[in-house]
């Protein structure tokens, strides 16, 4: 059961990476990052079947960090939308030389 969970976790993580690399919509990229966090959580739960409940504690930490990240990130996205009237990452090139 644990190897299968790790397999599903790897596939979900890679899907998230491909999403981050191919999309331009900032909110979709954000959701892909959430998907990657979920994939890592699945690994943690799988390993908690092997090593005890420490993995589950880390999943709870990851979830609270993801909640904080979602709050701050979406506030940033709203600020960007006010400025550019879009959430397309093509417009966010202030740091580009």
């Amino acid at each position: 059961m644990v190897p299968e969970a790790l397999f599903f976790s790897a596939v979900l993580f890679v899907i998230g990476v491909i999403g981050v690399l191919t999309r331009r919509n900032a909110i979709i990229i954000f959701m892909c990052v959430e998907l990657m966090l979920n994939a890592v959580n699945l690994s943690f739960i799988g390993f908690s079947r092997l090593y005890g409940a420490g993995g589950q504690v880390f999943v709870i930490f990851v979830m609270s960090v993801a909640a904080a990240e979602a709050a701050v990130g979406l506030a940033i996205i709203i600020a960007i939308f006010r400025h550019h009237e879009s959430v397309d990452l093509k417009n966010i090139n202030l740091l580009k030389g």
Partner: protein
Amino acid sequence: MPNGFVFEFLFYLFGLIAVVSAAIFVTRRNPVAAALWLVNTMFCLAALYIMMDAQFVGAIQVLVYAGAIMVVFLFVVMLLNLGLPPSVADLKGKGARIFALLAGLIMLAEVMVLVRQKLPAELAWLPRETNVTTPITDSLFRTYLLPFEITSVLLLVAIVGAVVLAKRRG
């Protein structure tokens, strides 16, 4: 009970649904549809957690991820009125897509090599009537007490940061 045929079948089924919904999620144009497919993935992950004896984390997954975080995402999508398909292409060009596919395949191969390592034996299944939250709270409030307190500070900082960012006038 744990390793019966039905159990294995359901485990594979939920894992497969999670992967397929994630694949549909990254290919949707409409952000609302994408978010709902991601919610589907999260529900299936919660089912997998419960099957792997992490019932508390499974419940938290549904409540926090599907119930709170994704609702915030949907709220922002609808607030900014992004539900309509965008006028410019959302997907990047062909070069970026091929690069992403190659990077994904390389990463998948790497992770598969890691997954095929020899794993130690799984822990014994707890009896059904055992309190499932006791092992978690035991390490959360003893071993990981300091990280737990730091997490509360992190959440406070995130709230303040979000309010400051949202209130700022151009």
